[in-house]
């Protein structure tokens, strides 16, 4: 493959990923509003388009045309940089997630992922740890007290739950013996009906802790103290409006999708699933369908949690993170390490 072809493939992949994420956000916002409405015995959006599906588009257009108000006391450079800093890591994380089986075009094999890194898992963790800057900078540069309170809460919360999130992945890496996401997906390949034994979901505590920490990392209910309306107005985005606010909103929904997609990829077998003996020209569709079915199921859990659980108190949040989640993860790492050691090297007395 020549340099130009590589560059062209990469460019197409990035463009497709970008378009996909933007259109997914439109669908996800509608999805969430409908589900929450159902759970609260309301109708939700009904007017714009069939079943109100175009409501998000209408909202997006409205936000684009609204004035972006800039308060007088902002630190302008950082105030502008913060929404961008929110969106960029969210977009970059998606690039390492494979959404389907690699397919062959002519004599070349093309992955259905932006790229694959041998340290993809660490890359994801590194980028998600950068997401906190958006919140912190937005809060500080707004020059107003509620955003600052939101930012201080955010930095404490995201550092705490990042630790649990990273530690929860240690057993997965040890179990599959790799940090490449493609290899982790490959390690979960298996036949229909025996697939449960092969998916990484056998590491149940890791799965649960990763997902809980993921909810906290995306600042979603019940961990949404960062933007708790009843206490600190809008939190870090209080002083943002129009397009700049839309960027924060977009980043939040892309992050929800990313965490769900990552959980799918790392624990639920990624794009693997039965193909029902479909012919070769059709078989490549199933992996993509499976990937989105699993991911949307997890997004549904996100929404379900939001509709069901009340917001935690700040001390409860910290207690839960440091005194329950992290010790639990450490114990689980020790247990799983022993088990994996047995599996690989046999009993020490044997």
């Amino acid at each position, binding site marked *: 493959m020549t340099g130009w072809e590589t560059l062209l493939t990469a460019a197409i992949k990035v463009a497709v990923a970008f378009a996909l994420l933007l259109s997914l956000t439109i669908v996800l916002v509608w999805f969430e509003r409908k589900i929450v409405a159902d759970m609260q015995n309301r109708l939700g959006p009904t007017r714009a388009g069939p079943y109100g599906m175009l409501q998000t588009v209408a909202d997006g257009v409205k936000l684009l045309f609204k004035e972006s108000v800039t308060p007088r006391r902002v*630190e302008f450079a*950082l105030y502008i940089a913060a929404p961008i800093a929110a969106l960029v890591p969210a977009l970059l994380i998606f690039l390492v997630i494979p959404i389907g089986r690699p397919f062959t075009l002519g004599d070349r094999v093309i992955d259905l992922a932006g790229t694959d*890194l*041998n*340290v993809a898992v*660490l*890359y994801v*963790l*590194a*980028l998600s*740890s*950068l997401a*906190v*800057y958006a919140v*912190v*900078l937005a*809060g*500080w540069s707004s020059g107003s007290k509620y955003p*600052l309170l939101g*930012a*201080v809460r955010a*930095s*404490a919360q*995201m*550092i705490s739950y*990042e630790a649990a999130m*990273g530690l929860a992945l240690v057993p997965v890496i040890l179990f599959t013996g790799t*940090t490449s996401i493609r290899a982790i997906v490959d390690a979960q390949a298996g036949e229909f009906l025996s697939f449960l034994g092969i998916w990484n979901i056998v590491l149940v505590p890791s799965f649960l802790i990763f997902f809980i920490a993921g909810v906290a990392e995306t600042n979603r209910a019940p961990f949404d103290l960062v933007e708790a309306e009843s206490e600190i107005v809008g939190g870090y985005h209080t002083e943002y409006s129009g397009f700049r606010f839309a960027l924060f909103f977009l980043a939040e929904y892309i992050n929800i999708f990313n965490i769900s997609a990552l959980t799918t990829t790392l624990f639920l077998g990624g794009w693997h699933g039965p193909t029902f003996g479909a012919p070769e020209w059709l078989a490549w569709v199933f992996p993509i369908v499976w990937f989105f079915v699993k991911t949307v199921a997890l997004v549904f859990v996100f929404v379900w949690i939001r509709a069901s659980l009340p917001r935690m108190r700040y001390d409860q949040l910290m207690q839960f993170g440091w005194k329950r989640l992290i010790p639990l993860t450490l114990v689980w790492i020790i247990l799983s390490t022993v088990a994996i050691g047995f599996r690989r090297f046999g009993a020490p007395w044997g």
Partner: protein
Amino acid sequence: MTAETVVFVIFALAALAGALTMVTARNPVYSAMGLLTTMFSIAVFFVLNDAHFVAAVHVLIYAGAVMTLFLFVIMLIGVDKAEDIRESIPFQRPMAVVLGAGLFVLVLVAGRASWVTGTRAVEEGGALGTIENVADELFGVWLLPFEATVLLLTIAAVGTIALAQFLDKPRELAAAREAEIAPGHEDEERAE
């Protein structure tokens, strides 16, 4: 000019600009942002040298954790306070120049001589093995120093907790602060 050179030049300039911002910015938040830029650019250099693992860990720890804590502290103590910028160490400026020049020479030597840096990872098995290579070195050849470092960090963590625990009564804190400030105190004389 190869693509590698282009990327290097861009991020080298970014690293320098970040470093300059770091020392010249009046506002500590902008200083922190400058340092962040420099760290991020250094991570890119690691990627250029096929050390993907080091790059990821560098971003994860320095940009993700350390700088976030810096920002957290800057926000908590308030950034509007005028800082005390009197220079308490005599000969601070000439010393900085000498040390800086020394560092520059060291970097030049390290870049030129392979007995400082060892052979490139790529020549020893390629980028695909960076995690494996690091693990082999850490848990094989350098096991004892590695464990000693672990012990050191544990001691530091325990020490921090001990300091916070034993001094959590307001009276003790006040007493400790008074002892620090009190003129003619033994410890302070010794320190000077």
